[in-house]
């Protein structure tokens, strides 16, 4: 990916502690898996930032290189890639996701 796009992604991850790259947005997800991701985060009652990759083809391609992950949605906590919808569900079920978020908010 070009340096310009990488900078933009870096910036997004720096500006917000919890970032979800998704299709659509919080109020109108455009995909079942993106919807699952937002539903989970909504249940946690925390502030999070979403980026609609449908708006920008560059970011859409680049974010997959950035995390070596071929699909959307993608959750980042504290600049670290956590996973997609399946993983979020797993982590939510075991309570790990809540724990990670709490640890983050405590810092």
């Amino acid at each position, binding site marked *: 990916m070009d340096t310009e796009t990488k900078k933009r992604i870096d910036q997004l991850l720096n500006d917000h502690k919890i970032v979800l790259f998704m299709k659509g947005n919080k109020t109108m997800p455009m995909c*079942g898996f993106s919807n699952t991701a937002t539903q989970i985060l909504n249940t946690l009652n925390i502030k999070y930032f979403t980026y609609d990759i449908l708006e920008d083809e560059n970011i859409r391609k680049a974010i997959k290189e950035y995390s070596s992950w071929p699909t959307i949605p993608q959750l980042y906590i504290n600049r670290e890639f956590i*996973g997609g919808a399946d993983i979020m569900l797993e982590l939510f079920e075991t309570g790990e996701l809540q724990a990670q978020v709490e640890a983050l908010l405590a810092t």
Partner: protein
Amino acid sequence: MAPSAPTAFAAPLSLPLPSSSFHGTTCVRRPRTRLPVVARRPAAAAAAAAAAPRMADDAGLALTPELGKLTSMFKAVPDAKLRYQQLLFFAKELAPMPDELKTPANKVPGCLSTVYLSATLDPEARTVSYVADSDAQLTKGLAALLLRGVNGCTPEEIAAIDPAFISESGLSVSLTPGRNNGFLNMLALVKSKAVALGAAADAGAATVAARDAPAADGGAPPANGAGAASASAASAAAAAAVEEDEEPDDPTAPVASAIRRKLGALRPSSLVVTDNSASHAGHAGARGLNGESHFKVSVVADAFDGLSAVKRHQVIYALLKDEMAGPIHALEIEARSVAEVASQT
């Protein structure tokens, strides 16, 4: 495995997961090769079958004779509204279905309306007959149409039906994506019941037992119409899931076959590949009704021991690099180690 929201992920808090519209059920595979009709009917019926050869319409689709006639008939109707009316007319003629047959195993999954389908096999003629019912007139008409097309045919003929007849006949234009999807699922259930009955009859099992065999659901391997020797009954499904990765590629489902083959490198103790494409038809990014774009894989392998969830998924993505860059639009992954499964049961 449930066909709707994944029950494996029961959350501590109540979680409003998306409805079953996004987590679909097994989609129909499109047979692209014409399959030979196994002639096992008694002499009289065989003579009749020879006199009325299998009909292929202009598009060269594999269809039963009756379904071929119906396809041509609908194709000839000039108006989408008139086709719709014809379906409603068919709905009226559908024979009533006894309530005791309306069981969960006989319910068409992923359908907007409630549709029930039950099948029996005539052991002598080795032909299948169905009864069906629905609470909505349109789906009742579609069921009636389908039944007209398959009643009295052999499991092989039914399994070979090319779902392209739905668009070929002009019917798909009269149906919303949701209804199209439901119709495909109806056809899938018709086929899987036929295959199960045929296999059970071959295995010498009782007709009644075969009729109650569970339909192919989201967890079991999709009913393979191409001469599947093993029945799609639940007991065989578990064994089949392990054997799947040792079978030769299925030419009617190249992407699913590639997934199975490549994930075989993990030496999984369980591998289930489900094509959920049909349930995504009509939403942004879906590839129409051709299928083989949205998959779910459930893998159990020792190889995952000690790997984080992200690493497990990355292993799978790496194995499927070509498919991810190509036909696969979405991949749901369930990756567990043998030890994890053992501790959960």
